[in-house]
């Protein structure tokens, strides 16, 4: 019985527990389920999703989301990764190109909307609408770093500046090319497909181009191209005796050339780079080349270039103007003056052998007169502004000084003869003075009638052996025979003479320029041996080369050489303006222009 009661008690307790309160209430709302689809509109900067968005700077993106339902949230995904969270229908976010790798990315905008039913599922985010739209974004950080300029010469020969742009043409508005050195105004290129510019204003020298890319959104970036191309150099080529080819480097781009020589236009508007002109001996000519763009309309202050160079036919001895010359056939030495120095030059190699400074008080050799060399030994005489120094040879030691016996540019005669005499006719006088070259003592002096008014050429001459003396002038001539200290007039007339030279090594032959002829007369009879009619173009005597026995004379526009025994046969001719040249050992030497020397030997037919 007790056991039964215990069981009843325990059972009752469990039964109590089984009577636990059980809530039964419900709160069911009758709602209309949502539609399957709703219209959603997502726009990003009004860019068509089929187009690519180019990001090259911090770019603000404006998003506008429209739908009939409320927006819960929107996300911006970049390549599937959350990029930005957005909570409004209209919002903006920015894309920084520095935070993305270069290349193409996919930007997606996801938008979630309520279902609008107010259901439990909607509240729990398990019911609603979603929509997404994607754009391709191409990130180009620092597009200016990819904007490369280059240049080349196009097929037509003009400079072409070209560029490569990583930015596509579709977003480029224009290019502006600035080249202050070659173009007067900026050049605007409105066609984005055009990626080059032909600069007709460039020819050579410095170039500085600035090309600016303007994008349609106003952003711009620029790049500079700087380079420098050399100005053409001028060169010369001897085309034989008569022609000179002048040529120059082709400039980097097509050019237009003006070639002038001493203010004289040789070629103008020239497009070739070579020109052939006549040679002109005896001048050191400066040729100036002006280089301009080939099209004259592109000329400006900055694209004009010039080059110049000196040219002389022959070899310059590097002497000052108006050098004096004498030739010693025994030693084959040309003596000349270089300021106050008496210089000995090898007549074959033209190398200086020796020199001596003759400083006077106050003139010296620098203001001196003629120099002379003996036909039979190595003696050489130099007349300074005060006195005359006579050296035994080119060593220039222990000179015999005749003082006072000055020389000058007007000295008419300064000659050493094989009988060791020194004949001098000073300027403005009609007296010939004769000295002993071994002692310096005056032997004799004698007057003559016809003194010339010209310094050049030689009007007064003495035969190498010292036996005959001739003084000619535009008024007449006198030929004397000299016996020790007495003179004897052999011949005289009053013709118009323009020069007289005794033939070297042939003391009985006298070369004369008289009237319209060049004559060789036999002395003492004054008989005519040869004659050359130069009436068409009057001739101008230079000298007779003792080494080659050739006469050098000037006629018309040329220097001419003929053998002394055949005046009519011109063996050499060279175009020149210099009529005061001398020729020794077949080398023509100019009186001026620094002593230009031209060796005619290669042009002589032997």
């Amino acid at each position, binding site marked *: 019985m007790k056991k039964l009661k215990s069981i009843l008690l325990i059972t009752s307790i469990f039964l109590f527990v089984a009577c636990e*309160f059980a*809530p039964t209430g419900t709160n069911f709302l009758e709602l209309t389920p949502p539609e399957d689809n709703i219209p959603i509109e997502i726009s990003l900067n009004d860019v068509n999703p089929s187009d690519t968005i180019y990001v090259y700077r911090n770019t603000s993106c404006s998003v506008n989301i429209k739908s009939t339902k409320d927006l819960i949230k929107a996300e911006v995904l970049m390549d599937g990764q959350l990029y930005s969270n957005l909570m409004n229908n209209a919002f903006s976010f920015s894309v920084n190109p520095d935070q993305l790798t270069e290349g193409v990315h996919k930007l997606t905008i996801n938008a979630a909307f309520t279902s609008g039913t107010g259901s439990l599922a909607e509240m729990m985010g398990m*019911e609603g609408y979603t929509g997404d739209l994607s754009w391709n974004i191409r990130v180009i950080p620092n597009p200016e770093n990819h904007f490369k300029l280059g240049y080349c010469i196009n097929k037509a020969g003009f400079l072409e500046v070209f560029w490569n742009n990583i930015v596509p043409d579709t977003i480029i508005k224009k290019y502006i090319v600035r080249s202050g050195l070659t173009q007067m105004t900026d050049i605007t290129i409105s066609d984005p497909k055009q990626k080059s510019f032909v600069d007709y204003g460039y020819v050579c020298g410095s170039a500085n181009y600035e090309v600016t890319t303007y994008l349609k959104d106003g952003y711009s970036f620029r790049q500079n191209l700087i380079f420098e191309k050399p100005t053409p150099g001028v060169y010369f080529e001897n085309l034989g005796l008569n022609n000179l080819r002048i040529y120059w480097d082709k400039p980097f781009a097509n050019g237009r050339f003006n070639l002038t020589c001493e203010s004289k236009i040789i070629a103008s508007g020239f497009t070739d780079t070579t020109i052939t002109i006549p040679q002109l001996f005896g001048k050191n000519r400066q040729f100036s080349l002006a280089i301009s763009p080939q099209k004259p309309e592109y000329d400006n202050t900055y694209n004009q270039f010039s080059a110049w160079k000196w040219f002389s036919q022959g070899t310059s001895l590097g002497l000052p103007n108006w050098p004096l010359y004498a030739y010693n056939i025994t030693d084959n030495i040309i003596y000349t003056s270089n300021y106050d120095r008496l210089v000995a030059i090898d007549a074959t190699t033209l190398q200086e052998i020796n020199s001596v400074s003759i400083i006077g008080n106050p003139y010296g050799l620098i203001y001196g007169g003629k120099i002379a060399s003996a036909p039979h030994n190595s003696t050489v005489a130099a007349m300074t502004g005060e006195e005359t120094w006579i050296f035994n040879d080119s060593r220039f030691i222990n000179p015999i000084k005749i003082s006072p016996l000055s020389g000058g540019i007007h000295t008419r005669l300064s000659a050493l003869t094989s009988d060791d005499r020194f004949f001098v006719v000073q300027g403005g006088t009609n007296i010939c003075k004769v000295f002993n070259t071994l002692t310096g003592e005056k032997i004799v002096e004698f007057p003559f009638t016809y003194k010339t008014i010209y310094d050049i050429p030689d009007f007064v001459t003495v035969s190498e052996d010292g036996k005959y003396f001739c003084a000619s002038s535009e008024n007449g001539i006198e030929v004397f025979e000299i016996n020790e200290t007495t003179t004897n007039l052999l011949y005289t007339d009053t013709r118009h003479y323009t020069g007289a030279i005794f033939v070297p090594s042939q003391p009985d032959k006298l070369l004369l320029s008289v009237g319209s002829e060049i004559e060789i007369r036999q002395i003492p009879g004054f008989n005519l041996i040869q004659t050359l009619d130069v009436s068409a173009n009057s001739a101008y005597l230079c000298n007779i080369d003792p080494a080659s026995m050739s006469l050098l004379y000037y006629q018309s526009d040329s220097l001419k050489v003929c053998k002394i025994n055949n005046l009519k046969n011109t063996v050499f001719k060279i175009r020149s303006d210099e009529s005061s040249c001398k020729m020794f050992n077949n080398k023509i030497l100019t009186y001026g222009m620094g002593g230009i020397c031209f060796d005619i030997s290669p042009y002589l037919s032997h």
Partner: protein
Amino acid sequence: MKKFLILLFLYYPIHAYTQGWAIDYSLGYGTYQLDDIVNLQHSMLNNYGLKETDCFPNYITHSVSLGYVTGRSNFGINFSYFTTGGRLNRADYSGSYTVDMIMNGYRLGLYSRDYINTKYPPLSIYLQLGSGVMFSTLKMEEKVNVYTESAQETSKLNGVGIYLEPTIGATYRFTDRLHFSLGGGYEADFLGTLKLSGQESQIKAHWNGFRFYGGITYILPTKKITL
């Protein structure tokens, strides 16, 4: 089941003795203040559209006691079971969301009752004072069913408090062994803070409220037993 239990005790033949063991079962009705629990429920209102459908209503109580009767006194131990609950619910075509909060109280204590005779001898008035410990459990169960998705989460809070309940009532001696009683009192709870997984919360389970009992007492005489 509840009706069956009541009938079982009503028809159980017993006689009353003036001294002996008394086994008592009372079916009662309680009012529950449970302010903190109600506040907790209300704090979840409107969450996902939840509405209150049940809010810890007054509910039936069950009590059993074992006491010793001697003369006009009765003292012993008492065990009571209280239960009530709340529900928040939201349902529509897409599914339902329910938060059930079942509150159970297990009260174990001592009581002392004194009888006062009336002019009608089978009927006596009694005064009783009871006190002991109140074990409270709050079982919270969230159920979500939305479309094909469903989830459920259950948490349980436990607390121990002290109660004090003065009661006044009347008994009717049907036989010497079988008494019927009616009474009412007021329970006041103290302490009773609920803990979640041993962690004390701010919520106190105070079952304060009126208690109404109607019970049957079976006396087991200790001096004279007649069956």
